[in-house]
């Protein structure tokens, strides 16, 4: 089992991301429901956080000094569950209980059922506000932890996101680092056609955030951006950071990438799963 390790190499991370993709699809297949597109677009981001960037201890999920990782786009949770299991929060065999009655692996994250989940999400737009409160609390206690919040691009259509976008810089919470998984798709179509949110970085800059645009499937780019966010927090600039991660919905599986929003919320059948796994193993994810 791979261990979280700040010194981990990019090639090792790439291997883990492949496994994370495969687990996500297997889980969604077994559940016969779930969100493959937005789980696959997160694969590198979540792998980078759980195996390199986060200060956390899977054996002590409530460790006070840990960094907080709030998955505001709760529908991407198969990728998070896979990362949690692979990094040691719970045994991997539990993964196949996704969406089954009584399972701690609910269809969307449930903090009360699964230690290590920081907030129950799935009704979009709420995670960044929670992250703000966490950062306020940590600052009061003098704990120097980062608070990360991953949002979907469609998600930032929610008004509450802009309340938090205004409030986090107002409270000078430089330990908040928000990430937008800019995968361009949502249920009813392309984000730009459904409700355009661009230019993303310009809007957040105007609200007082440092913004960084990256290729969200490149480990060196993700690592560099998050290290910049940490350095900004250490310097105490008072400005939070927003990373716009340019990603592909369904990344790593050609028919899902091409099918775009068809794979937002539908599960692959056995044949599709086999094809997808073969492709990921052959290196389609890179």
């Amino acid at each position: 089992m791979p261990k979280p390790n700040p010194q981990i190499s990019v090639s090792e991370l790439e291997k883990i991301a492949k496994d994370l993709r495969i687990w996500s699809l297997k889980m969604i297949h077994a559940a016969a429901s779930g969100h493959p597109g937005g789980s696959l677009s997160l694969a590198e981001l979540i792998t980078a956080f759980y195996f390199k960037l986060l200060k956390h201890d899977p054996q002590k999920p409530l460790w006070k000094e840990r960094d907080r990782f709030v998955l505001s786009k709760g529908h991407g949770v198969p990728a998070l569950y896979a990362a949690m299991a692979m990094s040691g929060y719970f045994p991997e065999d539990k993964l196949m209980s996704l969406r089954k009655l009584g399972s701690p692996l609910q269809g969307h994250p449930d903090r009360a059922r699964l230690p290590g989940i920081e907030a129950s999400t799935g009704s979009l737009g709420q995670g960044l506000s929670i992250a703000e409160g966490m950062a306020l609390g940590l600052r009061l206690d003098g704990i120097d932890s980062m608070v990360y919040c991953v949002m979907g691009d469609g998600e930032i259509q929610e008004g509450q996101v802009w309340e938090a976008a205004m409030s986090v810089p107002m409270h000078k919470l430089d330990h908040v680092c928000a990430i937008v998984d800019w995968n361009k798709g949502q249920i009813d179509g392309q984000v730009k056609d459904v409700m355009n949110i661009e230019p993303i970085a310009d809007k957040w800059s105007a609200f007082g955030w440092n913004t960084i645009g990256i290729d969200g499937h490149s480990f060196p780019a993700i690592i560099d951006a998050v290290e910049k966010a940490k350095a900004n927090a250490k310097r105490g600039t008072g400005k939070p950071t927003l990373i716009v991660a340019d990603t592909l919905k369904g990344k790593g599986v050609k028919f899902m990438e091409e099918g775009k929003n068809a794979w937002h919320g539908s599960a692959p059948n056995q044949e599709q799963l086999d094809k997808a796994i073969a492709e990921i193993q052959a290196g389609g994810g890179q």
Partner: protein
Amino acid sequence: MIDKSVKPLATRRAFGETLAKLGEKYPEIVVLDADLAKSTMSMLFAAKFPNRFFEMGIQEANMIGAGAGLALTGKVPFICSFACFVTGRFDQIRMSVAYTQANVRIIGTHAGVGIGEDGHSQMGLEDIACMRTLPTMAVLQPGDDVETAAMIEELVKYPHPAYIRLTRQNVPRVHKEGTKFAIGKIQPLKPGKDALVLASGGVLGNSLEAAEALQKQGVDVEVANVSSIKPLDTAWLREALKRHKKFITVEDHYVIGGLGGAVAEFLAEEGAGKLLRVGVNDVFGQSGTPEECYEHYQLTPAHLAKKFQAFVRG
């Protein structure tokens, strides 16, 4: 009974004073407000503990989430706004507070038509109904300043989320100083054999006054204070069913889903009792002085006495 030696006080005022006092004893208390600190009285805490008070601007949804985040780092957050505005962000309370199991104390002031001139848009009339549906959420409404103070301190240690509904207007004191408050308990205030009046919040004093007036006319109603609407003290109510057939609920809230709704559910499941729900019926509130509003919506002692009597005799 009503303590006429003490000046009536708004429960929001008692809340603000209590919180400012408790801030010393409990460093984990933090307070958030959405640009209404002068009205909710959270300003009293803000003045004493500026580092633990967060002005959140006119952003109730964000305030609810931030309150949840603070709770998840071990703080005891009180988030404050008008009842209608804060519970109007129902989904944020449903997800970020209740489902997340973030132990936020949600303070909703300006309950009911008793706020007067500002009119319907500022009146919390459906807040209890909404909050009651959320698993683990306590729904509380103190009847006077003494109870408010006891309740707020009790809540510091309470291991679940809670909603607390407070009045804008002054209300008379009905509890003796030092009365203990327990979540989930009904407090009997006046014995009586003809019917049981269950009152909550700003109308508690008027209900007692009505009962006292009726006493002189030979109508003898029992009055109890239901400050804990959820959890509801069903054990006490079941005992009460042994001595009463007629139940009356009184509240400055819609009868749909409020205390009246809660007691109706209880009685229907018991298959016993007869119920009169007094409160705001299925109509909108409106502007007027608080006194005019209580007259119009028939919540004055005289109106209540008339309704109690008709129900007892009917």
